[in-house]
């Protein structure tokens, strides 16, 4: 597993990255000296307490936020703002309510920067409609969709412009447990068909183990990488995996670490108030 990953191409490199926010109530260091790498096709999760700076890390990679010090390299070059090579999935879905399902998927394809996909536009929309199990809802507006369907729509929209990296910020956080599991399975299915490099932020240790090759446990603020965990289970994974003793052992172990950080972050939050 280890040698395999080293052989794969490195897509993303974080090298001693730090970030401090300056607000009205003083400065807060949110990310400190973070270094990690994402290899081609790898699925990496970040677990950490809320408010610890995981989202900032993802947003730096997405190009919404710039680091203060250190380097972030994407395919060998620096990051110059957001771009369609990195698909971003948010917890709040962000599907456009004024567009039908079909038009939402087509949104990215309608932009000038994705003109090279113009000839395949119709096929791509139809393909992702089907892949995300949204067929039959082409002409429906998002108001008629459930939360899970909205998130699938957001995924279809991100996939349509063919990014090779997916950045997901607690994508299933707002969904009920059943829908969540369904979407996790589906994400895995889709990734088997069209492999992407994924960076996932999640609160759920179980979700992280179930989906990832590797888990980075992030400390309370400022974000540091506390532990790197290689997930030993082979793909494709099925829900039965979560019932195995190996899975449960790993889950308990990681939950303990993550709970400690959660408590620390609570103390921090109490101090600042």
């Amino acid at each position, binding site marked *: 597993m280890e040698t395999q990953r080293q052989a794969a191409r490195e897509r993303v490199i974080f090298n001693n990255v730090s970030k401090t926010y300056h607000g009205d109530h003083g400065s807060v260091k949110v990310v400190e000296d973070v270094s990690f790498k994402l290899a081609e096709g790898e699925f990496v999760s970040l677990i950490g307490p809320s408010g610890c700076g995981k989202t900032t890390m993802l947003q730096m990679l997405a190009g919404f936020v710039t680091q203060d010090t250190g380097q972030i390299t994407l395919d060998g070059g620096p990051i110059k703002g957001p771009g369609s090579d990195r698909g*971003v999935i948010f917890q709040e879905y962000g599907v456009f309510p*004024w*567009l039908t399902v079909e038009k939402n998927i087509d949104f990215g394809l309608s932009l*000038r920067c994705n003109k090279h996909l113009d000839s395949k536009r119709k096929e791509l929309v139809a393909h992702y409609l089907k892949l995300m199990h949204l067929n039959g809802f082409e002409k429906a507006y998002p108001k008629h969709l459930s939360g899970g369907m909205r998130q699938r729509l957001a995924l279809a929209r991100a996939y349509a412009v063919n990014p090779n990296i997916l950045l997901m910020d607690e994508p299933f956080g707002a969904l009920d447990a059943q829908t969540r599991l369904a979407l996790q399975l589906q994400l895995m299915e889709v990734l088997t068909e069209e492999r992407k490099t994924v960076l996932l932020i999640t609160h759920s240790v179980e979700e992280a183990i179930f989906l990832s090759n590797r888990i980075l446990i992030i400390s309370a603020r400022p974000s540091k990488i506390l532990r790197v965990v290689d997930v030993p289970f082979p793909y494709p994974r099925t829900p039965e995996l979560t019932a195995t003793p190996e899975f449960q052992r790993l889950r308990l172990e990681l939950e303990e670490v993550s709970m400690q950080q959660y408590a620390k972050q609570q103390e921090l939050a109490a101090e600042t108030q």
Partner: protein
Amino acid sequence: MPQERAVKRSGCAKQRGFSTAPFLAGVASFLTLGAAWGLLWWSNLFDRGLLPAPWEVLKVLIEQMTEKGLWLDILLSTRRVVVGVVCGLAIALPVGFLLGWYKSVRAFIDPVINFYRALPPIALIPLVIVYFGIGEPARISVLIYAAFFSSVIVIYEGIKMIPPIYIRVSKALGASDFEIFKKIVVPAALPHVLTAFRVSTGVCWTTLVAAELVAAERGLGAVIVNGQNFFQVPVIFVGIIMIGTVAVLMDQVLRYATAHLLTWQESM
């Protein structure tokens, strides 16, 4: 997905458009009002010279329509409102966008806007008469003023409230600034622009009548003033009823248009 809750797809297209039940309820409510008025007249609590009977007013209404050219007054007043609203909105749209989009512009212009907005447009009528006389330019300029200040706030609050996630999503998909404006800001602001349209239409009717009461030869405000001058109470009633009717009709048209343009909205 099998595990997922099924979603109702019914009612996608059926909700919008004309529906009979609320229309009948509206008619019934006006009939009740008319009946109450008739009863009040019949009870003789008020001097019948001051409170005409509904049928008397109806008779005068028909008379005014056929002999005195009431339709021209309606047409003139409506045209003034439409011109005022359209011009006022045409100015309010770019200004509202600048205010909503650029924080620095907002900080600079907001106080001034709030000052003028707090000022009732009617207060400007004397000044406008001094500047433009009592002709059409005076009335129209007051209406544009009224439409602009009542709509600019609605528009810029609307622009300000566009959820940042839409902007982020479109940026992540590679949208340029112009594309964000065209494909996100415009459709996301549309509901607020339509609200601004309705609000300014209402304000313009109020202002118009005030302007016509002060200075106009024709128009629904002038009809009321004439009724007062010749002590023809039924004519005053006709003027008031027509103003209400036209304003309600215009609002209905706008509502209908809004429902059609915004089928995608959650609350529709």
